[in-house]
């Protein structure tokens, strides 16, 4: 049977010929096929859904994309609460649109994951049962309007640092999805920055609200990319599912955003935070990794409430899904 990808007019000819070489190895022994796969991926090649891939790779991509999708879906909840309270028409439109984007990202990512063999409903089941995870930052409460600015600016900025590196992921559908997601996230950052700058230039109450939100979010932000890890032992890096280590991402985030935060006259709640010119990297107080572990295992301040909210809501809308999946009947 002809692989439909070989006929795909969208792929450049060189990539098409590479696809042929690796998809058509079906008669080779496993180890040899594995070697071809390794060489292809390590050499910068892309894997497409119909290509042969080792189960470990499929599982690793699925795990990675599923957690990303879960995070987009759960990330909707903290901000969604403020759509109703947005203080101007423009802010309400922007926030609704931003949250809508996150839902759209969840949809795109769940589709990528579905093609790897796990049905969407099974992913929702696992998320609600606590078998799969979502990002630490979405386990925290949003207390004031300033949180909306800080999340859209800095949480999204920390995310985009990681996501930009994923545009070159070895898994083709994920890499392409990230192109769109990154573009939209960069608009979110502009929206967030605008909210933050407005508050920073506002009344004393607004400035205090902003500083308080930043103080509260800084810990989770520093934990967000995870503890330092050994590059050589990270299989996601080896297979180029992702491109950078946690520490590389954190350093990148600090380099871009610390000056921008300070420029607004805000302070950061870490007295050790400073750029070490000799070492060429940021020094900072060790983030609270216990807090991170506690939070991502669904013991964060809002973990239970948000999962329960999703569960109740899923239950309350089950009849709609049943109705639209059913065969239409003739009118009564």
């Amino acid at each position, binding site marked *: 049977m002809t692989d439909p990808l070989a006929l795909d007019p969208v792929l450049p000819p060189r990539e098409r010929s590479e696809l042929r070489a690796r998809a058509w190895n079906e008669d080779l022994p496993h180890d040899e096929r594995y070697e071809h796969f390794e060489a292809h991926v390590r050499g910068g090649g892309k894997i497409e859904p119909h290509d042969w891939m080792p189960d470990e790779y499929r599982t690793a991509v699925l795990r990675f994309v599923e957690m990303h999708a879960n995070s987009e879906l759960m990330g909707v909840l903290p901000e969604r609460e403020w*759509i109703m*309270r947005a203080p101007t*028409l423009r802010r309400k439109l922007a926030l609704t649109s931003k*949250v809508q984007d996150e839902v759209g990202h969840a949809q795109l990512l769940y589709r990528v994951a579905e093609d790897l063999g796990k049905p969407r409903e099974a992913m929702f089941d696992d998320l609600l049962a606590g078998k799969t995870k979502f990002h630490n930052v979405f386990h925290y409460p949003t207390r004031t*309007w300033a949180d909306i600015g800080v999340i859209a600016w800095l949480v999204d900025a920390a995310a985009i640092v990681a996501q930009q590196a994923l545009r070159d992921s070895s898994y083709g559908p994920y890499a392409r999805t990230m192109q769109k997601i990154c573009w939209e996230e960069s608009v979110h950052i502009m929206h967030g920055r605008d909210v933050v700058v*407005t508050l920073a230039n506002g009344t004393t109450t607004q400035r205090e609200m902003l500083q308080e939100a930043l103080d509260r979010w800084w810990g989770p932000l520093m934990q967000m990319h995870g503890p330092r890890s050994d590059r050589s032992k990270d299989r996601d890096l080896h297979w180029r599912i992702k491109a950078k280590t946690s520490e590389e991402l954190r350093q990148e985030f600090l380099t871009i955003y610390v000056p921008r935060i300070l420029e607004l006259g805000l302070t950061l709640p870490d007295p050790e935070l400073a750029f070490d010119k000799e070492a060429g990297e940021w020094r900072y107080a060790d983030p609270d990794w216990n807090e991170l572990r506690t939070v991502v295992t669904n013991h964060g301040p809002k973990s239970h409430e948000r999962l329960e909210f999703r569960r109740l809501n899923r239950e309350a*809308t089950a009849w709609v899904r049943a109705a639209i999946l059913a065969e239409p009947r*003739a009118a009564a």
Partner: protein
Amino acid sequence: MTVVRFAPSTSTALAELLLSMADDEFVIGFSDSEWTGIAPILEEDVAMSSIAQDELGHAKALYELLASVHNDGRDADALAYDREPEAYRHARLLDHRRGDWALAIARRFLYDTADAARLASIGDGWPPLGELIAKIRREERYHVMHALAWADRLARAGGEARERFVAALEALAPDAPTVLATPEGEAALLEAGILTRPMSAAFEGWRTEVAGILVPLGITLRLEAPADAAAARTGHSDDFRWLWGEFTSVRRSDPGATW
């Protein structure tokens, strides 16, 4: 700045019409945006959120026109937010809380079809409004298609979906006609060509259209002409007071601040 050159009584009637339309779009935009992030399926979540944004965009444009009629320094945000709950002029149909998906679809179906009938009654008597309405109608066309697709699907699904949908329609039916209540100063609006037909005619057309859609689905709905035009848009519910408390909370926390 749009210059308004109407007799004072016409200007007052125009302002009331703009306010009622803007408040309708503003409030239904809030109800719909409550579904953002929690709609029954992700694809629908994105759709409903787009509709909410359209409605808020329409509300914003209508408040801006209203600001130009008042010409007293209040901008669209001040008009939208800085009022007591009693001063809102949205139709009673929109006074109900978000409810379940059946209520959301029933409300959208009744509102979208009624709003289309209202929009079709607005002429070029005041060109800024005529031009805006032409744009709004292009977008509302898709809202009607969306509402009709869902109404059809829920009604034909039978079982729980149909029961919920019919119950929601019946719960909203007494208030649905309020969207097309006769506005204050209608004679002046007709005279100025701002309206091209009385709202009572729009109501009759809408009632026939709704029956044409629902009767083939085996649903009959009693839709009676709103008796008291003034009451159609005042005396709001506790649900709306709650909503008002939410949407003004940040703004009231630091009055006069820029957000």
